[in-house]
Each structure stands twice: as structure tokens, then as C-alpha cells.
């Protein structure tokens, strides 16, 4: 039990660390932005930003919401989906006539409930790598189909609620048995207009979550993005 608590504490610390790293990064970006508000330095700053590398034009801050759960589990009758969120950074590089290569890093939570009483929250550091392809319709909003993979490392898990005392053969998920790595694929559709990005996607993990169960994680995402540097390129 002590080991379990230690692990939980470690996971929490890691979570906090990752959030701090992310915040530091974004704070730096916003600090640059707020600098530009200074009227005297505005022109110089703008010039400096104007000469930023072009790949930064396609770097965006991403935030999103998801509904996630376990699939292919033996306990599928007792499982239900939970809501989670993500925040991260993503970039894209044009490749060829209609395709793009996307890369990024997300900090995301994917949750599910068991027996409608116990809720498990898993925290992941995701590394999506995927391609997108421009579709011939809605070209003014860059309507694209996307397909790719995502590697995840679990940086923590928590359980809220306790299993009821009942029959001994009742299966119980245990965060200590959760695997630390996951990988999977996703596909979806995205749109882009000026500085804003919107995406719908579906993710399927291929690794088991709990060593004792067959179920892997899946999720449906709604993501929103904001291209941080495009507005300086005027």
C-alpha cells in the first residue's frame, strides 16, 4: 500500500513538472507578445518577429476536449466513457502538393469509469505524428483529412471512488497495474482559417491499459488550435 502511495505521489510530481514546463514555454511566448505591446519597441519587435523562421508560422498552441474509454475489454459491460482534456504544441510542414507532415507534443488526460462508481484518470504525454491531405472541397478553409500515429507515455494515473465490497471474483482495475506506454493510430478531419485551427479525430490505442485486462484506450477528440506567430507576418 505504501508503495502504491509513493507511486501516486511520484506521478503527481511528474504531472506538476510537465505542466510547469508547458507553462514556462507558453509564458515565454506570451511574454514576447506582451513585449510587443510596448509602443516604442513595437516596430523593432515586429521586425524581429517578422524575420522569424517560416516554420514557426505553422506552430500552434492546441487545446482540446475528449471522451475516452476502454475497448476490447472483458469488462465492457461495466465500463463507461469519461471526459478529458489536452493541451500541447503542434507544428506542420508542407510536403508535396496536397500533404502535410504534423508533429507535436500533448499533455492529455484520458478517463473512464468502471461500474459507474470508480473513475480512473490517466495522464499522458502524447507525441502525435501524422499526415494530412488537402481535400478538393472547402479549399478556402483548408479542409483536410488526417491519418497518423500517436505514441504515449503515461505519466500518472489516479482513481476516484472505491470498489464496493462484494463477490470476490469482481474484477477490479488497479492503477498500479496500468502500463506506462501506449501507442495507437488516429484519423480525422481538420480545418484552418487564418490563425485558427479546428480538428475532429478518433484515436485507438493498441496496448493494453491494465495488465490483467484485454482493453486498450480509445478516445474522440475535438481540438482547437491557434497559430502563435502568423499574426506577426504582416
Amino acid at each position: 500500500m505504501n508503495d502504491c502511495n509513493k507511486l501516486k505521489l511520484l506521478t503527481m510530481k511528474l504531472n506538476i513538472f510537465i505542466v510547469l514546463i508547458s507553462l514556462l514555454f507558453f509564458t515565454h511566448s506570451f511574454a514576447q507578445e506582451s513585449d510587443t505591446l510596448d509602443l516604442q519597441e513595437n516596430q523593432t519587435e515586429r521586425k524581429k518577429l517578422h524575420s522569424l523562421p517560416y516554420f514557426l508560422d505553422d506552430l500552434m498552441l492546441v487545446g482540446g476536449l475528449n471522451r475516452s474509454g476502454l475497448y476490447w475489454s472483458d469488462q465492457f459491460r461495466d465500463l463507461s466513457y469519461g471526459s478529458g482534456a489536452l493541451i500541447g504544441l503542434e507544428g506542420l510542414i508542407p510536403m508535396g502538393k496536397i500533404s502535410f507532415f504534423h508533429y507535436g507534443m500533448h499533455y492529455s488526460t484520458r478517463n473512464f469509469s468502471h461500474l459507474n462508481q470508480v473513475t480512473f484518470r490517466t495522464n499522458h504525454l502524447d507525441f502525435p505524428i501524422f499526415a494530412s491531405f488537402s481535400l478538393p472541397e472547402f479549399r478556402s478553409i483548408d479542409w483536410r483529412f488526417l491519418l497518423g500515429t500517436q505514441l504515449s507515455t503515461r505519466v500518472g494515473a489516479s482513481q476516484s471512488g472505491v470498489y464496493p465490497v462484494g463477490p470476490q471474483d469482481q474484477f477490479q482495475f488497479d492503477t498500479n497495474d496500468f502500463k506506462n506506454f501506449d501507442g495507437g493510430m488516429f484519423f480525422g478531419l481538420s480545418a484552418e482559417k487564418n490563425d485558427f485551427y479546428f480538428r475532429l479525430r478518433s484515436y485507438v490505442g493498441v496496448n493494453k491499459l491494465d495488465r490483467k485486462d484485454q482493453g486498450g484506450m480509445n478516445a474522440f477528440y475535438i481540438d482547437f488550435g491557434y497559430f502563435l506567430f502568423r499574426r506577426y507576418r504582416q
Partner: protein
Amino acid sequence: MISLFALLQLEGMAQTARSVTRDTVFYDEFVGTEELRLLSRDTLEVKHGRYSFISRLYNLPLSNRLNRLSITGNYKEGKFDGLWTYKLDEYDLSINDVVDGRTLRLDYGLDGIERNAKFLYSEGIPQGRWEIENVVVTNNRKQTASSAAVFQFESGVAVGNFSSRGVISKTSSSGRLNEEGFLEGLVTIQYLENGIPITERRIYENGFLINLIKLQQDEVILDLEYEDVIQNLKSLEGTIENINYTISEEGFGLLFQNGYNELDPKFISQKNGNNALQQVLDRIGRFANNAEEERGQPEFKLTRRFKFVYPEEEDEIILNLEPRLNIMLDEYNAFLSNPKFILNKFRIDSLPYIFGYIDHARKRSQDMLDVIELINDGYFDFLYRPNYYPNGLSGLNRPGEFSYESEKGEETAVFDLGTYVDNPMAMVSQMDEVSEVLRERTDKFLEYAFMEIRIFDQQATIDSLDNLIVQLKTRNDALYSYFQTIPTDRSFEEMPLDYRLYRVLSNNLLLDLQEKYLDAEEFEEKVKLGEELTCLHALLEDKHDDILDFQNMPSRLDKTFTRFSPNPFFERDIETKILPGIYGKGTGVLFEYYLENLFSARTCEQLKNRIQRIEKLEERLKALAADSDNPEVGRLDRALRRENIPSRIERLLNL
């Protein structure tokens, strides 16, 4: 002792009063010399003591007329006091001969009138006997037969017996004024009417004329009883048909009025007699009506009137009626002066009739407003209104007619509101009723007329749009070679851009819009579609040359993006293509995308923006080419090389 005191007093006055002789002008006409005495009073000098004036013998240039005015009188502390005499000689001089002799003499003749007036004043107020006399001078001799008039004044008001006679004009008058100055009892006036001597006997009662008899050689030719006045005077309640009245304190001069209109015998029959009396008053006024600061004017009250107080309900009705009539009048005037109606008067059936009706309604409304204005101005305060409008308001007191211009000529139509202003006792309430009916009636006509003109206007707008669309379409069909067939050795894509664009737009947009325009039934929708169609055609006509030029844009810009550098080996310079990324993507992917958009435009606004976008692209590419040495432009060029999505290229090119 007393004599000594009086002597000293006189001496004192003599010291302060001074005599003045100076030239002056009387009545703007008589230039002469006046002698007067001025008395010092504080810082001012006032006239005091004897006064005399005698004008020069006034001779008008190139005229034989001789005039002279002489005045004598007395001032007391700046006011007329005591006897004032006026003598005005008005003669015509005729020179007959110069009689020779030791002393030359003129043989002349003077004919004219010597006018005399004697007025008595007391400290500036007419008081006592006033006389005027005219003596006729014929051939230098004063005639015994002359004209004269005598009045008595009490505190400025003519009272007591008066008389006048005029030998030449054969007029005379006599009568009595009561203590308040109003005519009382029998007044006899004689005058000539069409050369026939008439004697008029009037009976007044305290200034009210109650009977007028005209005699011609002792034969009664008119016996007019003012029964309305007698009735009013007899009535103790002071009320006639709900109209309250009192007796006025002020005098109203010779004309006796009780609301008689100008055609009323009670008005007309006074006229000649009053004129005869007025002549006498004018003769007095000729000498008495000036120097108002120094003397009071003689007041001839003569007649009274009844002061009428009309029912208060009338005020309430007028309070609503007047603004309503003003609004109606404004509406009618706006309609009658509306250029649309005037211009299309004969193009819409029934509009001439409505024009005539509204014009007639305008006149009748103005008549009612005139009555209200007279009421508001107090015109009927001393005039019995029912006497003024014995048959109600003319034009609205019975069914009438109005005329209007039609294409056939002038026509007449019936004007009958079904309700009339025919009761002199209830004029205001009847006007209220009639105005309501008139408004309802005219509102219907105006509504109909406005509806007609709107339809007419709408049709005119649509006709004009039709014409414009046809004109523009015909011009564009020719401009864009719409009817040209594609040669067999060429495909549609190989045809010029303007030809292709117009074909595509015609098939996908213009013809469709035209169909909708023709099918549209709602005016607003039809106009909107028509305006869209004309906007598109006008834009295409205006931008034809630009559109034609678009297809040459890549080759045109190719020269801009080419640099020549000296060739060390050959005479011909080395051609270098600069900024291949910018040129390639700008004139390639993005330009083609813009052209596609041009073909798929669905509105005039879209087409306009998309044309402008291509123009802007060319300008931007030219600007970048001109700035090709800038390292930033070089970086942009490199960045663009890997881009193939139009919106991304557009963004990077900052379009």
C-alpha cells in the same frame, strides 16, 4: 399791493418766456413762418402763449393753383388751449389780361374755396364748440352760400347736437349725440344719389341703428327696420340663440355693424348717408389730426355694437378642428404640388378627377380655416356671426360641383359630402363634422392615387431596368463574343479567358439570374435581382480589358522576374530567373485558384472582389520582384517553394 404782485408775476414770466419766429412746414406741404413763445421748464422749453402761422402763397410749378394756410391759437404749457382757428385758401388763378395804363394792372380771376375751422381746446383736449366752414369764391367774390358743420365736444368726445350743410354738394345732416357720444334719436341726412336728392332719416337708440328710411321727394323708397337690433335690445337675457352678448363701451364710428355681410341691405343702405357724414368728419380731421403730442384727437364714437360671447364648446371644437384642417391642407398641397402626380396626371385614369377633387377640398378647407381665423382674431366679437353667414359657409352649405381638367377638356363633377355647413347657428360644429367627412373622403382618394402612382413608378423602374439589362447584355454579348462558335481546331479551354469567363458566367449565373428576374413577382425582389444583373453586366463591361489582360499575367510577369547579367563569353546577356518560388506559386497555383474562383463567382460583389484580388496579386508580385535583393524576400521565396495550397500561398504573400 395785489396789482404790484401781479405785475411782478408777469414780469417774471416775461423774463422766462421767449418769443420765437421761425420757418416751418405744416402737413408736409405748407412752408411758412410761425411765431410762438417758449417757456423754460427745467431743462426743456414748452410752447406757451399765443401762436400763429402763415404759409407763403403756395404756387405749384406750372400750375395756376394758389394755396395758403394760416393758423392762430394759444398754447398752455405745451398743450392746445382755447380757440384755434385754421384758414386754408385754395384758389385757381386765371390771368385774363394785362391792363395798360400809368400803372400796369392784371386782369385776373380767383375761383376756389376758403376753408375755415374753429376748434376749442382745454389743456389739449377738445372741449366746446367746433365749427368748420367752407366759403366758395367765384370770380374773386366770396359767395354767401357756403358749407358749414358744428359739433360739440366734451372731454374730447363729440356730444350733443350736431349739424352740417353743404351747398355745392347739396348735403346736410343733423342729429344728436348723447352724453357718451353715441347717436341718439333722429338723424337726418340729405345727399344726392345719382343726381337725385335723397333724404335719409335714421333712428338711433344709444348708438344702435334701429331704423333707416329713405325719402325721395317725400316719398318713402326704403323703410328698413333693423329688427335683429331691436330684438337684441329688447331681450333682457342678453342671449340670442345660445350666443351671449353685452353692449360695447367703445364706439365704432359711422358704420353700424351687427355682422352684416357686404351684400346685406342693412349694410349697403347705410353707405351713401355715411359717406355724406364722413366728408364732414374728414374736413374736421384735415385740420385736427396732427400734433398728437400737443392735443387729443377728436373722438367720434357715434355707433355701438353688441359684444358677442360665443359658446365655450366652440373653443374646444376649434382646438381640434384647426390643426386637423391644417394637416389636411398640408396633405392636399403636398399632393397637388407633387411632381410625380403632376407629370403623370394624364397617364393614370381617374387621377385628373382626384386632382380636381383634392383641389376643391383644399379650397373648402381653406374657407373653413378662414372662418376659424376670423373667430380667433375676434372678428365676430362685435359682429353677429349668424348675420355674417346667414346661409352657412358658401361652397359647403349645399351639394356643389367642381371642375377638373381631363384629356378631353374641362369637366365638372358633383361635390357632395352628404353633410353641410348650412346652419349659421351651428357653424363650428358643422364644420367639424364636414371636415371629418371630407378627410375620410380625400384620404381614400389620396390612398388610391398614391397606390396608383406607386404601381406606375414600380412599372417605370422595371421598364428602366429591363432596358438597361438589355442594353448591357447586348453590349457584353458583343464585347465577349458570346455568339462566336468555338473553332473546330480549338477546345473551350483554349479560347480566350474573357470568352470562357463570360460563357461560364452566362450559363451558370447570368441566365439563371435573368430567369429569376423575369419570374419574380414581388417588386422588391424583382428590383433586387435586376440590380444584381445590371451590376454584373456593368462590371463585366467595365472590366473587360482587365479580364482579357489576366490571361497574359504570367508571361507579363515573367519579364519582371527575369534579370539580365553580362555574359563574358557571348554578346548575349545571361538571363536569370529570380524568385522562382514567388513567381511560380504566385502565377501558378494561386493565380489558377483565383481564376477558378472568378469562374465560380455567384454575386456581383464576389466577382468584383475576385477581380480585384487578381489585380492585387499582380501588384504584389511586381512589388516583390522590385525588392528581390531584400534577404527577407529571398526567405519568402524559399518558403514558398514547398507550398502548394492557395490559401497558404495567399497568406505568405500577404494578400
